[in-house]
């Protein structure tokens, strides 16, 4: 009792007589005690609630996975029959409960991602039959970008093409995450002009977004692939980068003249990527340009040029490559030896000849290059 009284006195009667720092300390103490108690209560009640919710969810999850796993047994039947068989069963779940509905949607989507053919059709039928697409559309119209992303993901996974127009509006959104999500979704869902966003993309497409777009463009079946060279003159460097990657992926030989023009590009990354692609496309007609520009370039471009000459391996520049094996830069020498090696029998012979006369470090590099166990 005494201590309570003492503390009470501290904060009341005696308070005005303390020096200011002690008074402030007392207030900070009071604040900490309140904050601390609230934190404790909050953390613990949150945990209890969570435990209860998780248990409930686990119960439904097991039920849902069990029901879904049986769908694979129906893939020889008619799709409509199968859907009609399953819809009433799933309707027995308390789908008005948001947690249960979200759980079902998640499982359905994950499951759907694994299949093509009838199983996928049955799953889509089930999704539509349970009117889950309406909820997804509501999500796309939400005020929060996170929710919008969720909605877009759902309709894209389920291939609901009717929603492409709804998504098109979002491909210009201010939020870059949402914009990217909408762009990728649009590539998948749009049947007429999936790449129109490239024409007007002014913002930089971050490398990460390029990666995602590239994945979607190259992995989605039935996308109409245009000739990407038409965007190689874009003023947006990131659009050029993305299209370079796509030109490479689809081996678009018609882009070679545009690529040669890009060799003068001020952006080093674009220049180096362009040279790389010219090599991969084995563009013999670019060799002279590559040779002419070589001596003015920084090292990272020089090595790319040497690598490209190896990939093209026309034999026209073997002497040049040989001369590069005497430079000071280790990387240039190694790449030169690699490129010589790529010249088939002729290259092998040249390597043997050089080996007889060269320095001990160059010998080591030649051995390294010829050792098939070392990659990269």
């Amino acid at each position, binding site marked *: 009792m005494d201590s309570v009284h003492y503390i009470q006195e*501290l904060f009341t009667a005696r308070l005005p007589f303390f*020096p200011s*720092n*002690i008074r*402030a*300390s*007392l207030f*900070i*103490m009071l604040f*900490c*005690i309140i*904050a*601390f108690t609230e*934190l*404790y209560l*909050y*953390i*613990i009640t*949150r*945990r209890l609630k969570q*435990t209860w919710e998780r248990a409930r969810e686990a119960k439904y999850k097991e039920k849902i996975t069990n029901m879904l796993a049986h769908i694979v047994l129906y893939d020889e039947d008619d799709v409509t029959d199968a859907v009609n068989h399953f819809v009433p069963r799933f309707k027995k779940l308390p789908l008005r409960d948001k947690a249960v509905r979200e759980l079902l949607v998640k499982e359905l989507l994950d499951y759907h991602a694994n299949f093509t053919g009838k199983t996928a059709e049955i799953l889509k039928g089930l999704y539509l039959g349970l009117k889950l697409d309406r909820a997804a559309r509501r999500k796309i119209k939400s005020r929060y970008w*996170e929710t919008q*992303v*969720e909605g877009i*993901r759902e309709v894209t996974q389920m291939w609901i093409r009717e929603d492409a127009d709804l998504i098109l509006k979002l491909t210009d959104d201010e939020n870059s*995450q949402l914009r990217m*999500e909408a762009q990728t979704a649009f590539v998948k869902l749009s049947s007429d002009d999936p790449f129109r966003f490239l024409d007007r993309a002014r913002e*930089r497409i*971050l*490398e*990460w*977004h*390029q*990666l*995602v777009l*590239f*994945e979607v463009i190259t*992995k989605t079946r039935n996308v109409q692939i245009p000739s990407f060279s038409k965007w190689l003159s874009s003023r947006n460097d990131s659009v050029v980068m993305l299209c370079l*990657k796509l030109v490479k*992926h689809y081996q678009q030989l018609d882009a070679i003249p545009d690529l040669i023009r890009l060799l003068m590009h001020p952006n080093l990354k674009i220049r180096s990527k362009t040279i790389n692609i010219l090599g991969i496309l084995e563009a013999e007609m670019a060799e002279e340009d590559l040779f002419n520009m070589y001596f003015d370039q920084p090292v990272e471009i020089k090595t790319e040029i040497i690598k490209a000459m190896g990939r093209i391996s026309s034999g026209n520049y073997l002497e040049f490559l040989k001369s590069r094996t005497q430079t000071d830069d*280790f*990387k240039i020498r*190694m790449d030169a030896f690699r490129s010589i090696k790529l010249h088939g029998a002729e290259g092998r012979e040249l390597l043997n000849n050089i080996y007889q006369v060269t320095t001990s*470090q160059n010998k*080591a*590099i030649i*051995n*390294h*290059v*010829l*050792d098939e*166990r*070392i*990659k*990269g």
Partner: protein
Amino acid sequence: MNSFFYFIEQFFNNAIFYYALFVMLSYVLLAFLSAVEMKSYLRKNSYVDYRQILVSPNAPSVSILAPAYNEEATIVDNVRSLLSLHYSNFEVIIINDGSKDKSLETLIQYYDLEIVDFALNEQIKTKPLKGVYKSKNPAYSKLTVVDKVNGGKSDALNLGINVSSKELILCIDVDCIVEQDAILRMVKPFMDESKRVIATGGVVRIANSCEVRDGRLIKVHLPDKIIPRFQVLEYIRAFLMGRMAWSRLNGLLLISGAMGLFDKEIVIKCGGYNHNTVGEDMELVVRMRRYMHEHDLPYRVVYIPDPLCWTESPSDLNILGRQRNRWTRGTIETLWSHKELFFNPRYGLLGLLSYPYWFFFEWLAPILEFLGLFIFITLALMGNINWEFSLILMSMVYLFAITLSTVAVLYEELSYQQYTSGRDLIKLLLIALIEPLLYHPLNVYWAIRGNIDIITGKKSWGTMTRTGFGAPKVKAA
């Protein structure tokens, strides 16, 4: 005479109060910034499908560099778990730093290794290379084992950098338990920041008492012993509250040696790890940042709060003391060798905020605390103490400390919630109550010892050869 002591005491109380107030305000600010950064990180990445990085031919290539010194008992399992990480374009380079046991032989035998003709591009000077090994079995084509003359951890990593053929290097401790999607998560910032990212750091968590099978974490538990348990709380606070805030400010100075992903080009340009310090992990980051400032290149150093790397922490006071002693020395050495940064506006935030923070909080704080205690005892012995005021000041600091720790626990609850059992949560909350009383004074003591060791030159400046890098190495401060 009495009035003189009264004045001293007044001055002392005020000094403690204002210093405490300053420290507390900084922590509140950091906690707030962390909350902002955590929230934006979690929002941004909850919709990311990391498999897209996994399958993409456009993802950056990564070399994992893991130095090994006398690890024969666990090396085979450790390498296996590194090889099974989820990533497509990567290689694992194990650097045998002149182990005296059969680490190399064990690897050669299990992974069917043979020596290859490797031409080394010595971009960073290191102790001599003895041989590069590759496996005859194509299942292990991603593995490269490098044998070298012993030269310490930094030297081993530098040789690994010379051998690496990829764009990014992930430097890790070989005995860490690394989550499968660690590379995927750590690589992402290199692609989604508008400035050039030169390094990303991963959170380090404590694996004591966790269920581990075949080098993989199965279930997370709070450590049974009290010393690692203190460290769990300390790490949560340091990583989720401290470093996230610094990441937000782009002012991170330290990436744990246990887990950091670096831009190889920049590392090579700055000359790699420094082997004249025991704090090579921090020193490298400071030097890389300095390099970027000196060349006027915009850059970022990013922190990933996801729990990706788990390590066994010391459960023995002596070992822990040695670890903390070393951290202190590492901090001092780094601060000393980059003293030009101190409040130097040329280095922007690095010079004006990060460096001074480390100077005042990480280096000076324990010394001030120790001095404070010393003066307090002296005054008390002379009978010139207002016990009530002193107690009030101390209670304030104590209450603030436990509140701050509880906020850290809340952050963990709201984000990753690794300690799923309710009992573990309660234990964690309780440990916060006694941590300032039991664990904190020990830390101050070790830090002081570190300072003394530096001054007496007992074990500093010289190369770290032969000490190897046995047990503790993660820095959480």
